[in-house]
């Protein structure tokens, strides 16, 4: 696993002269470039829920009007995705059409990729996640999933950053995370069929009993991950500050949209579970949204006292 989180960016830039430079830039800056045909943009944006930004170009369309129209369409579909535009002469948004000035967040020129790096840091990797946290979450999730689903093997991708407010799948669980150095939420998302499979249910999807079982299974996985995260990174609750800020979460089911009231990115983990017998796969997504407080300079990992270490599942008698 890469120690740093990555982010997938949609590269909508036809500039042949700069293609290699952009590719190299992505590789050096933990970005995974995705290039597609112009005709596929809408479809890809509707299906890809794990994008960090769009790398656009002033000359992407066959005309300035088409370039602006495409940017407007992208922005309408995914307003939270930062669009960073490469220009030929000016590294500012000055002089662009009103549509492009409104839809793009930053401009750069190919001769000064340091400015692009700055934009990436500002608009994608705006939160720095300690490597120990990334490794630890992966370990915790792996331990919980392998314990809960012993008849599955699992694999996971490098953690990635998104700026989406998109709900993936039909079922999600939310739980608060609170400590002296971070406050926010953990969210697990999955398609309902995935959870039916993981719950070992075979009845019809409309069966209310099956649905309760499915929901409860997700809830227990969430609880176990949350508990392990708390024990490892949050520790004693008495260290929390007394003033508790809260912001409303907004969910729009119609548009599969959830807002945590912030432009902060979301740290995502994708786990693929594979049945050892029939090879069928299921995917679970874990997202961490630190919308209320993020102070990585105060990051603390709780190391249990080795003298009193008791394995999970073992009974510690007092």
């Amino acid at each position: 696993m890469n120690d740093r989180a990555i982010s997938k960016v949609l590269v909508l830039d036809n500039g042949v002269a700069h293609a290699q430079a952009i590719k190299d830039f992505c590789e050096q800056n933990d970005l995974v470039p995705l290039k597609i045909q112009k005709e596929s943009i809408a479809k890809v944006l509707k299906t890809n829920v794990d994008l960090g930004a769009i790398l656009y170009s002033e000359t992407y369309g066959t005309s300035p009007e088409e370039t602006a129209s495409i940017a407007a369409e992208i922005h309408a579909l995914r307003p939270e995705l930062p669009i960073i535009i490469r220009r030929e002469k000016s590294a500012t948004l000055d002089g662009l059409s009103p549509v492009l000035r409104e839809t793009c967040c930053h401009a750069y020129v190919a001769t000064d990729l340091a400015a692009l790096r700055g934009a990436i840091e500002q608009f994608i990797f705006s939160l720095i996640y300690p490597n120990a946290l990334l490794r630890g979450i992966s370990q915790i999730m792996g331990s919980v999933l392998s314990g809960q689903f012993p008849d599955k093997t699992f694999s996971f991708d490098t953690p990635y950053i998104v700026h989406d407010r998109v709900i993936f799948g039909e079922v999600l669980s939310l739980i608060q995370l609170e400590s002296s150095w971070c406050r926010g939420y953990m969210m697990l998302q999955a398609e309902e069929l995935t959870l039916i499979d993981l719950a070992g249910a075979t009845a019809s999807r409309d069966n209310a009993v099956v649905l309760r079982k499915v929901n409860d299974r997700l809830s227990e996985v969430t609880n176990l991950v949350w508990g392990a995260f708390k024990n490892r990174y949050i520790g004693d609750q008495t260290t929390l500050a007394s003033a508790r800020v809260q912001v409303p979460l907004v969910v729009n089911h119609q548009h599969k949209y959830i807002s945590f009231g912030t432009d902060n990115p979301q740290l995502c983990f994708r786990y693929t579970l594979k049945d050892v017998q029939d090879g069928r796969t299921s995917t679970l997504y874990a997202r961490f949204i630190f919308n209320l407080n993020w102070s990585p300079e105060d990051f603390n990992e709780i190391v249990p006292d080795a003298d009193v270490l008791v394995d999970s599942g073992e009974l510690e008698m007092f």
Partner: protein
Amino acid sequence: MAQVLVVDDSSTVRDEVSSFLKSGGLDVVTAVDGKDGLAKLKADPKIKLVVADVNMPNMDGLTMVEKIRSELHNTAVNLIMLTTESSPSMKERGKAAGVKGWIVKPFKGPAVLETFKKLVA
């Protein structure tokens, strides 16, 4: 007559733990939260062992065990916590309330069955 009361808001955990204990020859009833657990224990004071989660709605597990001692005046029942919590302060609070043992989830039945059987004997 039940011997063990399993208290957890998760039906997955209630089913898993009670099925395992039943297969080990123990008689088990379940409750969905601390309030329900208190009511079930009050209705059947001969229950010998309570296995309870901490984080539950309506009434958490540690409040429940404190009330078992203070309101039900039941000092005979053995109390074991089965929870994701592992902080020393939580364990101290449990100890002060008379909790005999602590298991950090996930539940591993074979590791604890013999001890549970001794606690209900």
